[in-house]
Structures are given as C-alpha cells and as structure tokens.
C-alpha cells in the first residue's frame, strides 16, 4: 500500500484484507481495520499533522498513546464531532473525517507560522509582559484566534452518554501484566475485583510484544471472576477511594443515521482498595529542533512497527539515554526498518558493547536536525569533539521513563527521586492506593510481577502491602540537558503542545521563578490536553539544573484530575435537555392545554401563564382574565402551592416557634396568614396555616418555597427541638388545588353541586372546611389572593381534571373564565399583596412590608425574632414597601427601575419590584421598596430606567378595595 507499511509478521493488530477509507484535511486516504488514525497517517507518509499552539511550527506525531503531545485533530462532522483529540487514540473507521487544528489557511501554508520567524519575540511570559496597555481584553480576540486548539462544535451532540456506579473490594487500574497479576491474586483471595484497562486489548506493553503470558493471565482473571472493563480510562481518584473512569462504548466512527448511539459511559467505582498499575511514559531527550516531524519516541516507533506494521521512517537514527533503546533497535530491525546509528548520551556500557552489529556512538548527542517540514538528517556531536552527519528520515529518541504516578499523586501520595534511574517514583503507598509495576518504579519483570501478586492478595485480605522492588531499568540520563551544549542553534523543546523550550525555562529562572508551580503557570509547560506527560520531568530537571538544585529539591507540580481529557458529554451523562432540570407538571396539564393554556416555566413548575384567545397577546389575555375575575369569577389551578400537614401534641407550639404570628391560638377550622423568617430575621416564605384538629394543621407555602420550608422545619425539629412530638409531612403532590375567585364564585360552585354549607352566608373568610363532592373528599379554604370572594378547593390530585371539567361546564352561567399566573399577579398587585422574593430580598424584615404587627404580644422566641431588635433592624432609613403610580397615569413603571433624587449616578433610594396595568383602575400600579417609604405617602419621585425618567407618586396600599369588603362576597 505504501512505502511505510512493513510486511508481516509486523502489524499484529491490523487486518490487511480489510481496507478502511478516511480523509485528512479533505484528502482521501486509506488504512486498515485495526489502525489508529495515527498509524494510518504515518503509513500514508503524512508527516505534518498540525501546527503548534504558539509558534505555529509544523508538527507530526510524537508518541503512540495517551501521552501524545502534538498530534491533535478535530474528528467527525455535525452532531458527531469532537475537537482536539489525539490521533493516537482514534480508531480508524470507514468514512472518518479528520482535520488539523491550529492552521489557517492550511496545514501546509500557515499564516501564523510567521510568528515562528519572530520566535525570539515570543518568550515565556510574552503575553503577560506585552499586552498590558490599554488592556488584555483589547488584544485577546485576535490572540485567541491565533492560539485556538480546535474548533468548538456548533450543533448539539447527536449521541448519548450514561453513568454507572459500582463498587469493588479491590479496583485495579491498568490491564498490563502487573495489573492482571494483582487482580488475579486479589480475586483468588476472595475480593470482589474490578480491573479497568484503557485499551481494547489487555497486556499493556506486552500486548504487541510477546503476549503468551498475557493470554494466560487474562483467562486466569476471567476464571477468578475479575470484572474487566476495557477501553476504560480511570481519570481521577477522589475522596474515600472513588475512582472515576470513562469507557468508550461507540468508538468506531459514525454509526450512521437513525437512533443516537451510546458513545461513552462514565463509571463511578467506589473501592475499598485501589491498585495502580498504570505503567510509565517514555521521557524524550531534549535537543535542538526536537519538535520536527519525524522526531518521535523510540518505544512508540517500535509499537507502530510491531502492532500496526508501520515504519516511522525508512532509515532512522536512535538517540538514547537508557538501555531500552537497544531493545527498540533490535525490534525495529526485525520488522524491517534500517537503523543507521544509535547515539547514546552515556559512556560505553554492557548494552552498547553487546550491540556489535549496530553503529553505536557513545557519549554523544544530537546537535542539529535537518528538515523543517520533516526530518532529512541529523548532526551528531560526540564528547570527543567528532561531528557526524547522518542522512535519515526519522530520529527516534528516549531518555528513560517517567512512571505514571498520576493516580498516586492525586490520592495524596508523595514522590521521591531516583538519581540512577532519573525518575520520580511513589514514596510508599498513597492513602487507599498502592502502586505496582512500572508506575511504582518496579521495572524488573519477574520481581514486579511477584510484587503485584503479593499486593493483590494483601489488599484483598485487608493487610498492609509490601514495598515495591524499585529499579530494573538501568542507568538513565545523565540529565535532561542533552544538547544544552553551548552554541547549539535551534529551539530545544520541552513541551511540544505548549511550545515551551529550554530557553523559556532559563528565562524564568533568570526572572527568579523558583517554584515548579510558578514555572508551570509562567511558561505554561505541562498544561493542555497532555498535561505534561512527556514534558514535566524534563521541565523540572532543567529548572533544577539552571537553579543549582536536584529534581528532588525542585519537586513536582501536584497532579490533579483528570488524567486524560474527559468529554463534557460523559460528565453530563443523561442530565441533558429535558432531564437537565425536570419540571414539575400539573395533574390536569392536558386539560389546561386543551383549553388553550400558554404553558410557561415558573420555578420548578410548568403551568399556565394565561389562556390567550386567537391573536391575543399574553399581556392582553392576562388583562382580560383579571378583569373577568373582578367582574364575575375565574377558575385557577393552584396545585403547585406548597402543602404540608403537621401532626402531633406539640404541633401548635412548634408552629408558634416557626411563624412570626401566633398559630396556637387558631381554633379548629380557622385559617391565618403567616410569614416565616430565617434566623437573620429576613422573610423566607409565607402562606396560610389552618387548623384541622387539636393536633393537626394544614400549612400552605409558596410554590417555590415548599422544599426549603419543609427542610427548615425538619432541621429545627431534629436538631433544636428533638424532644417535640411533631411530624411534618409534605403533601404537595397529593393534593391538587382548584381555586374559584370573584363575586360570582359561590354561584359557580353552587351550580356545580358544592355543599350549601360552604356558601358565603354560612362560612367566614379565613376558614377551612372538610367537604365532599360526588364522593371525592375536599378541603375547602375560604381565602383570597385576589381580594375577591375566594375558595381554594384542595382535593386528591387525580381528581383535579374531573373537578375542573365539572366546574368549566358551569362557567357560561356565571360568565366565568380560566385565569393563569399572569392574571393572578395583576390581581395581587392591585391588592398590594407581596410575593416573597419578588417584592422582598435577602434584607427585608417583616416590619419593612407591614407584617410585624402583634410581635410584642407574642411569647415564643420564634425563628429570627432576636434579629428584629438589632440596631440595623430599627434603622429608619430601611427600604419599606410602598405603592407607586405614574403621574401621567399611562406609563407602566419597569420592574427593576431605580428611584433616585436625580438621574443616576446618584444615591439610589429604592426600586420598583412589581408593576402592571390595572384593568380595574385603568392606570398602572406598582409595588416598590423605598427608603423610609412608610413616611413618604404622597411624595412625588423620579423613577429611572435606561436613562428614561418617569415621574411617580407614593400612594397608599392597596390600590383596589381598600376596605377589604369584596372577600366577603
């Protein structure tokens, strides 16, 4: 197929009989089933995959796994589009469309690359130092456009995500040989064991080498009952051993039109003990122009050859600071890749001596790379001063290993530095988490496997795990400064994704950045999607070298979740669209919709705002409905009203402690309006309290306040008054509320067959009556939020539609209408009734809204009472509730408009809180909070809204029926 595809047996994982077509930047290409996007691009000879973040230098693929720093693409189209993914993790799928990030207009010719020509002008902290005047915000849009990493999707995700919670005695993270061994040992010792493995195949690094042991272990794991979750990346460990992992369910590209596919599954695994077996990353060498396409990690190149049958170059040079390069060289040659030379930074060693058939140059470094758009050759500088030029199309390098200590560090584990191996390893176990294998610093296979087995069994039995057998990788190094020799030209990169070079670290040190945390933020090294997996150790080794400290003294930055980027879809799971915030719905919703209800969301509830006639606006409908309620009668669904039943011998005493007004003095069948405060004295909620019996009360709260009121009652009962014999039972969804209000309300009810004992002549305002209609039990409250004769009929929720229909059949006889929340608001403002949270705020005391009457006569130390006597509570300048009406008699005052002596900026004296045109009065009415409002009756004020001035007058409340005669019918 291409010159970069190697012959079998190289290519263990690909199926050469099953070609797969895909596109890269619109160009049609082809690979095999089993390829990743990275291996397919390399097989096609694609070297430049994208442009770098800051300098827009051409970049290729660096690695073969999760640590990939520069091979970033946007994948997919429309609703199946993911920006900024690493090419190494994308399984090749038929029709897959990938695009480079960070290039405009194209990856081959990039305007931003001009910034590369001015690289000397873009050192660490360049933005912080330069774009200060007039403000960063002035430059930000242009810089962000230049610096973007991928493009955000523009349409909603077409697929679905889900979340699963499970638990384990022992959770093993990592499907390599030590992870499998630990899991088998734990399961055999009787522990419920779960193993998560990031790849589709078990075996880790052995999966593409000699995998006979892996097959054996995998079947042992199945036999022992280990639950294995493959293609699942554990990205974070949180409090009390909660491990979060993301499983790729639908990875194979576009599943085609039709039902959405389940793409990812988020696992929340609570484990008694966690074993990390996450392996190690290769650490690159640092040398001039080490970011050129064709410069890759050595181990990655071997994996591309063995697993995918792809040569990362036809003639390669290996540059090494550790022994593993010799194994890589042998592997590559066996697969058919020509290794021109192996450049070892170290002195001659047994490994170099043994490699007799290989051109080995010891104590040497890569001094230069030829080829800006792809490696064409390199210059080798040896300690003996000999310079050597080698033609090659790939420079594969490795400086040693960086154990993947991320989970250990997240769990609060400490690290220590091994000088010989040049790596940070866990300093013992972390709380709840023990590391095994390479991530523990145990590289000798036999010792690591036997340690893993001991750890698995010990943790399964609740015993302390033995310490890890460190070492086995040989001497690495000497240090990360490889190529720092003076006079070298070309940038020596540490962090390819963020374009951070050794010079940037040197500059930071010159500017006295000492802490590695500061270095990270100043230079941006270790940020981005790879989070420094290949760069962090080199960065802090350089920081140490430039500031005369060892890496141990410098320390590492704290590792934080997530270990890999996690899609927002996986985090959101099913909590999207209608399930993001499920609405509460009326039991009779369908009936209202059939009558033309315009449903809107009010807090948690979806309910009728009004019932507009054809061509009628919401506002006009509300005016018509409110007018009809005052003229004849209206029918309103008040089911969302909060409802509690309070039982027990201490119920009356308890309510006295909760409410500002006395409730124990209510006789059975009586109702009273009450307000609830918090301990700070401010209004929390209000509503009707009625007595059903000596030890039984009916409590209404606002629709929005029921949850917090019920919770507050419970908290007081359980935490402050545990000796009280009181039960609080929320019954909001059990009882529907059908309200009939207006001068002809009783006529309407009587016509529908209600008991004549409920007539206005036979009952009083503010009373509660047990009744029944057609065998349905009713609790009928004679109360009013409109100022008109009102009946609130509470009945079992599933009877609501029946009663509404029964009443509606009689509406014509009394000229009755349906009215919604908007008309209700108009009616209550005409009456000067407040709505908590609208006409009050977090500072409003009961006295500010005229609800402090009778407190002095009350004995109980009710909630918030003491706060009402603080000096601030008695301040005469407090905001107080007033009525406002515009002097012109026409202009509806905007809600939120400010009251001030002159046009703002000026001292604000108050604000409009509720405002409507009054259909009853034919002029606008408003409620407002106004400083010293109670003493300013008749005063003319200026109301300001968006630079408009409206003259208004403070008037007495209520606007309608000041004598309150209408409630009696």
């Amino acid at each position, binding site marked *: 197929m291409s010159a970069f595809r190697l012959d079998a047996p190289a290519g263990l994982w690909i199926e050469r009989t099953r070609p797969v077509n895909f596109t890269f930047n619109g160009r049609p290409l082809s690979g095999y089933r089993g390829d990743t996007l990275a291996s397919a691009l390399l097989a096609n000879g694609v070297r430049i995959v994208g442009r770098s973040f800051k300098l827009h230098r051409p970049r290729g693929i660096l690695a073969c796994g999760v640590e990939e720093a520069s091979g970033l693409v946007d994948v997919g189209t429309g609703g199946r589009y993911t920006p900024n993914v690493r090419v190494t993790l994308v399984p090749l799928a038929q029709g897959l469309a990938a695009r480079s990030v960070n290039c405009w207009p194209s990856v081959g010719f990039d305007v931003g690359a001009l910034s590369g020509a001015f690289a000397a002008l873009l050192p660490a902290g360049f933005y912080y130092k330069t774009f200060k005047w007039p403000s960063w915000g002035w430059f930000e849009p242009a810089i962000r456009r230049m610096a973007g990493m991928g493009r955000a999707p523009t349409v909603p995700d077409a697929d679905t995500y889900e979340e699963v*919670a499970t638990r384990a005695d022992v959770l093993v993270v990592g499907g390599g040989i030590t992870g499998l061994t630990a899991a088998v040992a734990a399961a055999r010792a009787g522990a419920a064991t779960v193993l998560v493995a990031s790849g589709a195949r078990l075996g880790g690094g052995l999966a593409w080498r000699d995998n006979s042991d892996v097959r054996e272990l995998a079947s042992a794991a199945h036999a022992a009952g280990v639950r294995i979750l493959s293609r699942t990346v554990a990205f974070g460990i*949180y*409090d*009390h*051993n*909660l491990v979060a992992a993301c499983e790729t369910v639908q990875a194979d590209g576009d599943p085609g039109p039709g039902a959405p596919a389940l793409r990812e599954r988020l696992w*929340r695994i*609570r484990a008694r003990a966690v074993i990390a077996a996450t392996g190690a990353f290769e650490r690159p060498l640092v040398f001039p122009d080490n970011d050129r396409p064709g410069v890759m990690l050595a181990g990655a190149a071997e994996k591309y050859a063995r697993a995918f049958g792809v040569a990362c170059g036809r003639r390669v040079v290996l540059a090494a600071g550790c022994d593993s390069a010799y194994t890589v060289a042998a592997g590559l040659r066996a697969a058919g890749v020509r290794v021109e030379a192996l450049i070892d930074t170290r002195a001659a060693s047994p490994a170099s001596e043994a490699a007799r058939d290989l051109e080995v140059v010891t104590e040497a470094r890569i001094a230069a790379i030829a080829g800006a758009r792809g490696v064409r050759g390199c210059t080798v500088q040896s300690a003996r001063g000999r310079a050597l030029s080698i033609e090659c199309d790939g420079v594969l390098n490795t400086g040693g290993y960086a154990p993947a200590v991320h989970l250990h560090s997240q769990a*609060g584990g400490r690290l220590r530095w091994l000088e010989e191996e040049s790596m940070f390893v866990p300093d013992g176990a972390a*709380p709840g988490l023990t590391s095994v294998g390479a991530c523990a610093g145990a590289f000798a296979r036999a010792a690591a496997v036997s340690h893993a087995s001991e750890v698995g069994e010990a943790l399964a039995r609740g015993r302390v795990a033995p310490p890890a057998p460190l070492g086995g990788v040989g001497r690495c190094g000497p240090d990360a400064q490889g190529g720092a020799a003076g006079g070298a030209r070309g940038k020596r990169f540490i962090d390819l994704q963020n374009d951070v070079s050794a010079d940037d670290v040197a500059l930071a040190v010159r500017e006295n950045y000492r802490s590695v945390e500061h270095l990270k933020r100043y230079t941006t090294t270790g940020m981005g999607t790879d989070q420094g997996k290949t760069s962090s150790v080199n960065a802090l080794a350089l920081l140490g070298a430039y500031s005369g400290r060892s890496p141990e003294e410098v320390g590492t930055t704290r590792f934080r979740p997530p270990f890999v980027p996690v899609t927002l879809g996986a985090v959101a799971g099913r909590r999207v669209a209608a399930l993001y915030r499920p609405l509460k719905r009326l039991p009779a919703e369908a009936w209202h919709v059939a009558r033309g209800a315009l449903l809107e969301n009010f807090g948690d509830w979806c309910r009728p705002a009004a019932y507009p006639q054809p061509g009628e606006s919401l506002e006009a409908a509300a005016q018509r409905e409110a007018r009809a309620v005052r003229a004849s009668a209206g029918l309103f669904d008040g089911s969302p009203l909060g409802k509690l039943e309070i039982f027990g011998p201490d119920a009356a005493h308890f309510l006295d402690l909760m409410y500002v007004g006395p409730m124990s003095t209510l006789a059975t069948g009586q109702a009273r309006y009450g307000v609830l405060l918090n*301990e*700070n004295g401010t209004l929390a909620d209000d509503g009707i309290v009625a007595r059903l019996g000596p030890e039984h009360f009916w409590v209404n709260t606002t629709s929005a306040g029921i949850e917090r009121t019920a*919770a507050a009652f*419970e*908290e007081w009962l*359980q*935490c*402050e008054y*545990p000796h009280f014999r009181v039960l609080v039972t929320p019954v909001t969804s059990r009882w529907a509320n059908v309200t009939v209000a207006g001068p002809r309300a009783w006529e309407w009810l009587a016509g529908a067959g209600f008991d004549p004992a409920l007539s206005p002549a036979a009952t009083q305002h503010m009373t509660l009556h047990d009744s029944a209609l057609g065998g349905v039990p009713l609790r009928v409250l004679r109360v009013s939020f409109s100022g008109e004769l009102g009946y609130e009929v509470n009945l079992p929720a599933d009877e609501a539609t029946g009663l509404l229909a029964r009443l509606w059949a009689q509406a014509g006889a009394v000229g009755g209408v349906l009215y919604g929340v908007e008309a209700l608001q108009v009616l209550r403002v005409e009456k000067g009734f407040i709505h908590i949270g609208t006409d009050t705020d977090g500072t409003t005391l009961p006295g500010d809204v005229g609800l402090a009457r009778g407190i002095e006569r009350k004995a109980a*130390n009710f909630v918030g*009472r*003491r*706060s009402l006597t*603080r*000096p601030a509570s008695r301040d005469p300048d407090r905001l107080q509730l007033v009525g406002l009406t515009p002097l012109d008699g026409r202009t509806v005052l905007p809600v939120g408009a400010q009251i001030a002596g002159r046009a703002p900026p000026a001292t604000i004296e108050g604000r409009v809180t509720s405002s409507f045109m009054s259909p009853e009065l034919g002029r606008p009415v408003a409620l407002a909070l106004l400083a010293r409002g109670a003493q300013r009756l008749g005063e003319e004020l200026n109301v300001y809204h968006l630079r408009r001035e409206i003259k208004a007058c403070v008037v007495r409340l209520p606007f309608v029926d000041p004598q309150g005669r209408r409630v009696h019918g």
Partner: protein
Amino acid sequence: MMLLNCPWCGARDEWEFVCGGTSHIARPALTASDAAWGEYLFFRDNPKGLHRERWRHAHGCGQWFNVVRHTVTHQVVSVYAMGEAQPAAGKAPT
C-alpha cells in the same frame, strides 16, 4: 466525593446529603446581647483538622446526624445521631 455513613441507611455517596455546617451551636435566648446573637449567627471556627458538623441524608431517610470529619484529609472519624453524646475529642490518624 466522600462516602458518608448514614446511621439509618448505611454508607452512601456524598451527593445524597446536604451539609448543615458546624454542630452543637447553642441557640441564645431572646435576652442575648447583640454581640452574642451576632456571634451565633455569623461567626464559625474554620479549623484545619477535626470538625464536628451536621449532615442531612436529604435524598434518603431525611434524617440529620453528626459527623466528625478532618477538614484536610476528609477522613470521617465518627458518626453519631442527633442528641447522642459527643464522642471524646480524639485525634485523627495522620
């Protein structure tokens, strides 16, 4: 996310609970001074170490209970019911 041991329902994830802040704060009488009342309303210790606090199993049994928790490690040292005697002030294992 912490794992809290509700005395009535057993170990459950933190998101089933709400935290009500410091436990064992005595509510002053109506005759308390402004200073004492202000202390009760607004002033709380913010210890680095063990903290007695109350939690409600809001998405479960609805019951309040007390927890002694280390504010740095989030280790829960003990759980006890409302009205139960406070366990002796212990030290969190480090």
